[in-house]
């Protein structure tokens, strides 16, 4: 028997020695919350509260002011060169006076890792934001980029639109395509490994800034 056959045979043996209880998938109890009647404005407030609680910087602006707000954030950060994923709306960086590099999904158009390590930051959108947990989810779609793009630069600026904000984890997962490469981000890189206290800033971006576009 090869390893696969043997492991499966062991499971079958275990089930015969100790027959498992009958519980169909459809009968699994799911009495937890999967819907929310909160309105967008409430969800936005909750998201901001949770983002700030985990030490993310938060800005708010109207859709018309987005380019100015991004330029302002980058100026505060003193970033001269930033990278954006292909597919990001070029109007977002229209007011920024520094240089904007684009990273493509095809290997040929990708920036090297050491180049990303030397840049002033990265700007992306997101697929979904979870209000209850202060979580941003990126799925690699245009405007969000491959996973390393939001990992190597030390500053990540993420733009969230009102229709991307959901109440909780169940509603967020329902919106996602699981086979895409997914990254869930809740605050800047942190660790609880020293005396079990949360400390920001290990390997990922040490600064996470979020711009929430008002509806």
């Amino acid at each position: 028997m090869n390893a696969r056959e043997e492991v499966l045979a062991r499971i079958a043996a275990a089930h015969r020695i100790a027959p498992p209880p009958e519980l169909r998938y459809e009968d699994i109890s799911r009495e937890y919350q999967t819907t929310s009647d909160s309105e967008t404005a409430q969800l936005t407030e909750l998201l901001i509260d949770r983002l700030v609680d985990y030490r993310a910087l938060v800005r708010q602006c109207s859709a018309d002011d987005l380019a100015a707000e991004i330029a302002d954030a980058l100026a505060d950060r003193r970033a001269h060169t930033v990278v954006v994923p292909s597919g990001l709306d070029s109007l977002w960086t229209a007011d920024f006076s520094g240089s904007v590099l684009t990273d493509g999904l095809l290997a040929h158009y990708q920036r090297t890792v050491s180049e990303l390590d030397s840049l002033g930051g990265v700007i992306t959108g997101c697929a979904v934001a979870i209000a209850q947990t202060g979580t941003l989810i990126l799925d690699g779609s245009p405007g969000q980029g491959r996973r390393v793009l939001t990992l190597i630069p030390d500053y990540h600026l993420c733009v969230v639109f009102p229709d991307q904000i959901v109440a909780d984890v169940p509603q967020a997962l329902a919106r996602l395509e699981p086979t895409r490469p997914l990254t869930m981000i809740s605050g800047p890189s942190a660790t609880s490994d020293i005396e079990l206290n949360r400390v920001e800033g290990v390997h990922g971006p040490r600064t996470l800034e979020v711009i929430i576009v008002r509806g």
Partner: protein
Amino acid sequence: MNTSVMLGLPAMPPPAPDGVGNLRGVEKFPAAARRALADTQLRRNLGKATTTIRAKRAQVVAELPDWEQLREAGRQLKVHTMAHLPDYLAQLEAAVVARGGVVHWARDANEANAIVIDLVRDKAVDEVVKVKSMATQEIGLNEALEAAGIAAWETDLAELIVQLGHDKPSHILVPAIHRNRAEIREIFLREMGDVDPALSDEPAALAGAARQHLRRKFLSAKVAISGANFGIAETGTLAVVESEGNGRMCLTLPDTLITIMGLEKLVPRWQDLEVFLQLLPRSSTGERMNPYTSMWTGVTPGDGPQEFHLILLDNGRTAVLADAEGRDALNCIRCSACLNVCPVYERTGGHAYGSVYPGPIGAILSPQLTGIEDNASLPYASSLCGACYDVCPTKINIPEILVHLRAKHTETYADEHRVPSAEASAMAAAGWVMSNPKRWALALRTGRLGRILGRKRGVIGEVPLPLAKQWTDARDFTRPPQQTFRDWWAAEHGGER
């Protein structure tokens, strides 16, 4: 003919093999615990850390009105999955292969280690970066790689502290929980080589030193090794839950990714993650959500490793599955909430348990993975207070399984020894005495003889007699009263009942 053959029962699946991995301690729990208790620095570090995390967990759990409903869903999902493992494993395998991954099966630690070594050698590299993984600690992968001439770089901060300190992990989530900031600073200064001697012991400065130390390793690594928190059968998606970003580095930068996953990490469908991604972070780090969670399915062109291997590991798990009263130990999602609330763990720390799985969950998981006789003292490393059961996100009834394993150990001992144990003899004698009212009344009066002891303190300390010593060397006894309850009752009420 042996009865199991007559009944047509198949052979018991084998436990995790001895001589490899880190499931068996070198000494019994009471001896190891005594030494740990004498270390006042250790007790201070543990007391501080577990108090912090208990408060954080309680706060974020209280935020969710549906916490109990989530726990029940988590429990039922695990029970259902364990009953349908073959189907879900096959489904996971097919989904991973369909998306360009390669799936390997490993009967035990030796087989898993050999598969990894072959894969790494095939890439002609002599070092790998690693994401913190209980499964790889369990099978002793780092030791096996080192023996094969391959350097394994632990990238999780706590794992790095353990590795640089030539130490052993003592907690599931925070392997260096037994070290405080001053000790960590000393280890970094001594071992890192490239650290500024002016490094302070502020946690943020220590985290910064780790960032600098590992950065070049990450950017040049060709092969990474990870565990998995969840594997979704329906889609073939794997999930790693972390904080620092070292996981993201390992999962996205190298060309080749090797993931080792215990069979029990399966989750039937994508939707089911909505339960576990709420239960796990709140139970483990006491956060609403951990900073980073990565999910990937096979290989994605242009994003992350272009070669992906998944190793499905048994190593004694099927032996656990064959025990109806103990198998729920497989439902563990490795949050470590039970360690943080355990009065025994809080005082002894993780090293005393000998296995990489310490605390209450370790006391029921390790003896089942290895076979009870190889970790026989662990089911007794508990006061059965039940705090672990209350916090477990998948509602594993740890106290009940501890009692079951104690009984199993007693039975195994009786089967293997002609002379009964001192405890069994005492129980038999007690049974004889208690079965007759006259004998029982006489025994109670005899108990007053205990008043000879403990006259000074009012309690009875260590009694230097066989059996009595084992019980009293860690416990004080109240001095028996002058009159037994029966005598008092007879004096107060005459002969009435």
